[in-house]
């Protein structure tokens, strides 16, 4: 079992993490952060801790545990 943490306030809503997650468990929130961006959130289970999301994130939003 693996999991990620998301630093919502750093997220700029670029959706790159969404596009690379092999498990398709990331999606964009309806809500805005204080920068005015829709931030990323997990929308499903089954994270395998591949860290693709973290690695492609330009804003170091995501940390990964495994």
């Amino acid at each position, binding site marked *: 079992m693996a999991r990620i943490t998301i630093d919502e306030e750093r997220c*700029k809503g670029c959706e790159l993490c969404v596009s690379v997650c092999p498990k398709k468990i990331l999606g964009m929130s309806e809500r805005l952060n204080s*920068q*005015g*961006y829709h931030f990323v959130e997990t929308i499903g289970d089954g994270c395998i801790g591949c860290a693709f999301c973290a690695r492609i994130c330009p804003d170091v939003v995501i940390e990964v545990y495994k």
Partner: protein
Amino acid sequence: MVTHEIICAGFGGQGVMLIGQLLAYGGMIEGKEVTWFPSYGPEMRGGTANCSVVISAQPIGSPVVAEPDGLIAMNGPSLVRFKGAVKPGGVIVYNSSLVAEAPELQGVRICAVPANELARELGNDKIGNMVVLGAFLGLTKAVTVASIEAALQQVLPARRHHLIPLNSAALRKGLSLVEG
């Protein structure tokens, strides 16, 4: 009023520069002296932005407005930053979709426009700025709506001209909010 000194402010991408330009073009179309002056934050995209617009029957001195008699604020930080500078007797129109608390100020007319919601109603998320502008025109008579519609012809590139009716609708929606 001989001279209108206006600040339009908001996040980048909310179209505050455009409504400022429309005000300036509108003034020019009405034969007045006008200036438009932009100011950006350090961000590449996003961040805050504002512009100063002056519309006058006389030659214009400073194009940088420090004490506006009209403020259009499209988000909270902009309202906070500029509201204190508005002259007594001035007008503030703000986007209440993004501002939770209504400002309180003596001697200034304040108008809340839920721009995001109204834009969505009009079927285009990006048209909130025009709704706010419509309300502003209703309150200040800085220029006529017709002049703004004529300005749209000049400001929008030809390939966007099909959007003019939508913009008009948004303007008139805003106007209707204040003309009751």
